[in-house]
């Protein structure tokens, strides 16, 4: 176990190094710089700025300097947002994405599992059909369409909910709905199929024969076993949602990390691009790592040496 974890960590470090290097050089290869602007600054000022930002040095020197700083935990200062620390920018924008994301995950899991369970329990009945049509719609319709539609109906027409911003509980409703449409659909389908499988399993029949109450069977056997595949899905989904959906954040005007990332790229804010990339990298790798561990704990059939392909 310890060796397994040590191995994983080593691989994560190597991946991170490759990620940093590749991003750094690719980013420098894009035309333009943080100093590109429509109204040209006099050459003397331009040169001084380049010198101050270290942009006058050869790229490899900039790269080694950056690596050195990162190893010491220094992510630098934004080149566009004057005097703002990159770690601060990440912290502030990530907190918005995280708040929204956590709510979305909880909603997605609860609603998705409930819907899937209902569909399985009322297999081939009306509820099942409605739930599955909704699931297909949820998976097929892209989130920006859902978002615009929700905005149109609930803000523009009915005036029930605010269009944009992130100031209180009411502001969560629409973005969460838009953000969860897809995961809900996916979880519902997963739950449904695995529950159907479980419902037909022999041990359920045994439990029934033993005279256990239906609710007890449902709770102790069906749900516990039926929910397994959902756990597998929740890991990557969490990482995915928490890193911020650019589209949703843009449409609902939420100052999250996804929106910040895109903004940093279009303004060539090098330190912010690098900072967020590293942050994303660590987050995603940790999410996978934790899923692997969680899986090992929940399902002892998974052998340690099996997890290598991750």
């Amino acid at each position, binding site marked *: 176990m310890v060796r397994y974890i040590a191995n994983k960590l080593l691989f994560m470090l190597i991946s991170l190094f490759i990620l940093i290097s590749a991003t750094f050089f690719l980013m420098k290869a*894009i*035309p*333009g*710089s943080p100093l*590109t*602007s*429509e*109204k*040209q*600054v*006099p*050459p*003397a*000022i331009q040169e*001084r*700025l380049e010198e*101050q*930002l270290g942009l006058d040095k050869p790229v490899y020197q900039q790269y080694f300097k950056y690596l050195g700083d990162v190893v010491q935990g220094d992510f630098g200062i934004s080149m*566009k*947002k*004057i*005097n*703002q620390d990159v770690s601060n*920018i990440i912290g*502030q*924008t990530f907190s*918005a994405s995280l708040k929204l994301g956590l709510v979305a995950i909880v909603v997605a899991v609860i609603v998705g599992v409930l819907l899937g369970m209902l569909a399985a329990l009322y297999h081939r009945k*009306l509820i099942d*059909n*409605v739930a599955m*049509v909704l699931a297909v719609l949820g998976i097929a319709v892209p989130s920006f369409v859902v978002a*615009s539609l929700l*905005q*149109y*109906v609930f*803000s*523009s*027409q*009915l*005036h029930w909910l*605010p*269009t*944009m*911003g*992130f*100031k209180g509980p009411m502001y969560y409703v629409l973005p969460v709905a838009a953000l969860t449409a897809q995961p809900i659909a996916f979880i519902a389908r997963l739950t449904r199929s695995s529950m159907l499988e479980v419902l037909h399993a022999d041990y359920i029949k045994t439990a029934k024969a033993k005279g256990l109450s239906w609710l007890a069977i449902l709770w102790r056997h069906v749900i516990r076993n039926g929910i397994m595949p959902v756990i597998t899905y929740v890991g990557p989904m969490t990482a995915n949602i928490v890193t911020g959906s650019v589209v949703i954040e*843009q*449409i*609902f*005007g*939420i*100052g*999250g990390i996804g*929106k*910040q990332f895109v903004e940093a790229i*279009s*303004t*060539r804010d090098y330190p912010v691009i690098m900072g967020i990339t590293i942050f994303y990298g660590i987050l995603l790798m940790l999410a996978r790592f934790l899923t692997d561990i969680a899986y090992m704990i929940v399902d002892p059939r998974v052998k340690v040496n099996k997890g290598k392909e991750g």
Partner: protein
Amino acid sequence: MKKSKSLLLLLTLVLAVGTLLSACGSNEKNNANGGNNATSNSGDNAANSGEAKLAADQTLRINLSAEPPTFDPAQAQDSQANTVLKLMYEGLTRMDEAGEAQPAAAEKWDIDGTKYTFHLRKDAKWSNGDPVTANDFLFAWERVLSPNTTPAPPYAYQLYYLKNAQEYNEGKITDFSQVGVKAVDDYTLEVELTGPTPYFLGLTSFYTFFPVHQSVKNDDKWAVEASKMIVNGAFTLTEWTKGQTIDVTKNENYWDKDSIKLSKITMSLVNSGATELTSYKNGELDRAGHPNGEIPTDQIPILQKELKDELHVKGTASTYYYEFNVTAKPFDNAKIRKAFAMSIDRQAIVDKVTLGGQIPAFGFIPPGIKGVSEEFRTENKDDYFTENVEEAKKLLEEGMQEAGYTKLPEITLIYNSSEAHKKIALAAADMWKKNLGVDVKTENQEWAVFLENRRSLNYQIARAAWSADYNDPMTFIDMWTSNSGNNDSGFKNEEYDKLVNEAKSLEDNAKRNENFKKAEEILIKENQVLLPVYYYTNVSVEKPYLKGIVLDFSGAIDYTRAYLEDH
């Protein structure tokens, strides 16, 4: 199987009912708007017959499409920062609607040629209660110009009008006392300029000239946190959630606080014109559109029908144009450039594509810029060329002969990615195809890539726009000189440079304007370095109860004296 069919039917029904319901909703809303308009009209009447009642809650809600990168006046260089800094700081002067400089931190001033003496008001205070003195201005300007300021203030050149300022900024002299600004006493600031600058008073209302509290000297992060900012304007920064909201609250220490009626301004930071407009219609914003956001063009015709009384269109001193790379084939030939310029239908572009009441342009200096006694554009008509397809065809043929083409080389028009620019580019390409029989490819490029290509003359014809930095034709004319960093056309003309340099030292404004007129003639009539398309307008929607906003000639907005009527 049958079951699923009936299910489908049910779903269709639900959807249909849903659509119907939402349609009803929209009707209701129109009625509600009708109601609003009616009340606003009566409100106007009330205003005519006497003072309209102020709304109890004086909180203004607006949206900025981008977060200002900084609240440090020395570092700012964008229009969003301009909006916010105007709320928080006050320069020596303030611009009124007519573009005239009004007393602000300076009570009055004397002008003696290139020497300006500003008398500061004695009751002006910083938000922490300290008096605003001439030394604060001196400190701020030195900070902008000092070569040791990090990062180097990009707009330092806005202060190059001061004697020796450029030399000091470039490190050629190291003694700031040689620069043309001096605090004679606490309330008298003396400024000496390098040459006659008729628009200097206007410049002192610009953010690079704003004073800064001297406590910022030892703190890099002072403009990063709301709690640390000490300002001298009508509002103080009370909340700043990065990427989300900026709130400013009335500054009780502001000398003219009695004229400030708004108690608070909340600014959301949403970069989506569609969301901004929906939000406005939903009553979450009091104003949407230029200059802080943008109304999607396809929404303008709808607004003209639905919210006619709330839609505002106002000219702004900016020009939309296509520039030619005069060093690249085939546009190294003036006749071919002229043929292209003469063969697009600007009125059609404005009426059918941009839809915002823009004015077809045949010159470079837009309306709104001061001339001698009236606007430059009123005094000098932009009749440098006309739209004439027959003439254009003839010129194209002559040009092709001169350059020895039997067939034009491949031509690509580049523009920065945006739905609006794309539509205009496609319309223009279509007109060239129809009128000249020329195929022009259009290509969109990401903003920084686009600028990089334009700057390095890696293009044939490119979209461009220019807005005024100050209210004088010079801000449009001097960008086309041979060594200007903003001249991306490859155009170099000695006579043009001479006219501009001469204008810089002329004291007689009539003579300066003559030079500008001649320069514009060389630029467009003779050489057609650019193809003017239209003069910009500001398109916005404003709630009828919102009053007192000042939108100046350049499209910059001042909310300080705005107020909300009872509604």
